[in-house]
């Protein structure tokens, strides 16, 4: 997830709870990490699953990308 200056922090946090099923504190923490660091990893898994998350987040108007990490 990438920080953007448009979406409200309350909205981003709500999307994390709704889409990922995060608890309130977890969603706030993730939202603040994106906000302060400019980006944060909010999900890890196989390519197809991550692409589905990205598509859903784009549908919410959030800026998300998939990145390959070595394992």
């Amino acid at each position, binding site marked *: 997830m990438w920080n953007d200056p448009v979406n409200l922090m309350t909205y981003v946090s709500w999307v994390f709870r709704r889409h990922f099923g995060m608890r309130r504190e977890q969603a706030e923490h993730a939202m603040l990490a994106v906000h302060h660091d400019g980006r944060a990893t909010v999900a890890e898994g196989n390519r197809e699953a991550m692409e589905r998350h990205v598509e859903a987040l784009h549908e919410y108007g959030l800026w*998300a990308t*998939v990145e390959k990490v070595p394992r």
Partner: protein
Amino acid sequence: MRGFQATEQGWQAIVEPEEARILLSLSRQLQSLLADSLEPDARDDGAVQRLLPDAYRHDDDAAEEWRRLSRRGLVERKVSHAATLSRAVAAPAVADGPTTITLAVDDALDWVRAVGDLRLVIADRIGIVRDGDEGTTVEPGLRDLYDWLAWIQDDLVRVFESTEGEGSHGE
């Protein structure tokens, strides 16, 4: 317009004809922008890039493949969110006075996303790129619209939170 209230009939808010006309015009423009976004030359439009960002930043082939597979469906869903907004405000826009609109929860979900998409487009048009940007004042009305839409989005999130929280409280 005052905030939405969750009632047994659905989520209700009262909108003035002028407000409904603005929302109707904006949501129709959004639908037309989205329809055009599938054209190759739309990629240079900053608003389209915000509505439909690339899924891969450093892999052009993967980004292109993802676009090919998912973009049309994503555009169709975004158009349908904006259409839900248009439908709800069409009659209030031509009413003589304030109208109560009632949304089902699914409609509210479309609204919050369409309003968010409208803010992305306006942000591009007024040059809000980084945190803290105030936006240009070439068209002062746009900044006011941007803030008003933020208020609507925040209000919808507030109602979602108040209703979604019910199941988990007290367990």
